[in-house]
């Protein structure tokens, strides 16, 4: 099972195992990682699962689609080139060890 590392805004790291095929967001909410609100449950309605994907991994992800882009334009913390909505990142074996940073706030 691939491992995903969440780094909180305060520097605390949470390592969780996520089934391949599930989203990074679900990995956070099911394992109690603080800072991923995920109010809409991954339906691209709320933009409260914003993460900054570590540069070493960001380029390996499929590109941002139109709706995700619209939402990222208005996230609570500043959008960066490596900003993603974690509900849209599907975990694969290739992403084992991926590091994502959680912004200070989601709303």
């Amino acid at each position, binding site marked *: 099972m691939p491992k995903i590392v969440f780094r909180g805004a305060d520097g605390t790291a949470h390592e969780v195992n996520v089934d391949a095929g*599930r989203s990074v967001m679900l990995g956070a909410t*099911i394992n109690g990682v603080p800072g991923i609100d995920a109010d809409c*449950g991954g339906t691209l*309605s709320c933009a409260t699962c914003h993460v900054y994907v570590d540069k070493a991994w960001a380029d390996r992800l499929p590109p941002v689609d139109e709706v995700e882009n619209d*939402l990222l334009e*208005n996230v609570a913390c500043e959008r960066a080139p490596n900003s993603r909505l974690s509900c849209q990142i599907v975990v694969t074996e290739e992403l084992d060890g991926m590091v994502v940073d959680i912004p200070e706030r989601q709303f």
Partner: protein
Amino acid sequence: MAGLAIVGGSYAALNIASSARQNGYGEDITIFTDEDVLPYHRPPLSKGFLLGSVDRETLPLRGEAFYRDNRIEVVFGARVDQIDRAEQCVETTKGRFGFQQLAIATGTRARRAAIPGIDLEGIVTLRSLADADAIRDRLPHVTSVVIVGGGFIGLEMAASMAKSGFEVTVIEGLDRVLARVTGQTMSTFIEGEFAAHGVRLFCGTAVQAFEGEGGKVRSVLTADGVRHPADMVVLAIGAEPNSELAEPLGLAAPQGVVVDLCGRTADPLIFAAGDCAFGANAYAGRQIRLESVQNATDQGKAAGAAVAGIEAPNTSVPWFWSDQFDLKLQMVGLSEGADREVIRGSLEARKFSIFSLRGDRIAAIDSVNSAGDNMLGRRLLGVAHSVTAEQIADPDFNLRSLMG
């Protein structure tokens, strides 16, 4: 056990608990839910979960680890029958539990109506996972479904079932769908989409009777004399607040459990949040009861903070979403008191937002497949701004420049 007792097991309950902890509440926290599962996402129940594209494992709002890490205990299958204010305890089907503070997050129940035949088998409502499971179990025996009510739940169910190949009829008593929540332009657009997907839509007619055979529903008779065949009827005519626990304590109005901006009732030990709460609303400037994930979440956070002794009033702009077919419908603000509508985008392209203006201010934005407009609105509508209709209608005008 003492500490904080929370009655109810959904968004508001979870957010009261987690916010109390985040704000430093150190006593026990116990959630009493009459269901047998942890709080879960409800919107998929009328959509992906019904269709089978969303599985059960993805439904919980938070996993068990979260409750353990935050020392939040959940008592399942516990219906709370009474609050004993003098003794500071709740009477539940799982026993009697003491509390120091109490939060009411009991939500709503589906409205029923005194219509002949209402108790026939095959007439269902949708609020909970158990309801959704029961509907899914019925589907193999269903060909024609009649949905009574053209609000969000009714339309989402209609879209899901039409997509799955069922014959779907929607009956709405008012003269258009979504009449309570949006304007004529959006209603007309949505009605056109449903018609294009083969959904039969009858507005402005009331159900006169449900007719059955052998105790099971077979058709729905409307006031205009039309008989609509049905193997299943979904009653989606709104919801009523579960405020019975608060009533004997004098904490409820007919509209729900009365709270202030911080989710406090008139009793210093008792709080409430979510669909059951009728409260001061900063954006509306008056008391309202909102039925939404956003309100349950934000009001829950405010109430949890108040339990911990922290003043954190809920000042969020109300917002809402609904997915129907490939339409991403999102709403932000409240259109009451608006004096004109301006369209940004294109109805033909099925990508637009309807801006409701009150003078030079935006009161509400109802969007279809335009998530950016909705996201912007959640921030812009909460601050002072001034805009013209021409600016809104101009696709080259950057709305973000209004943020100042």
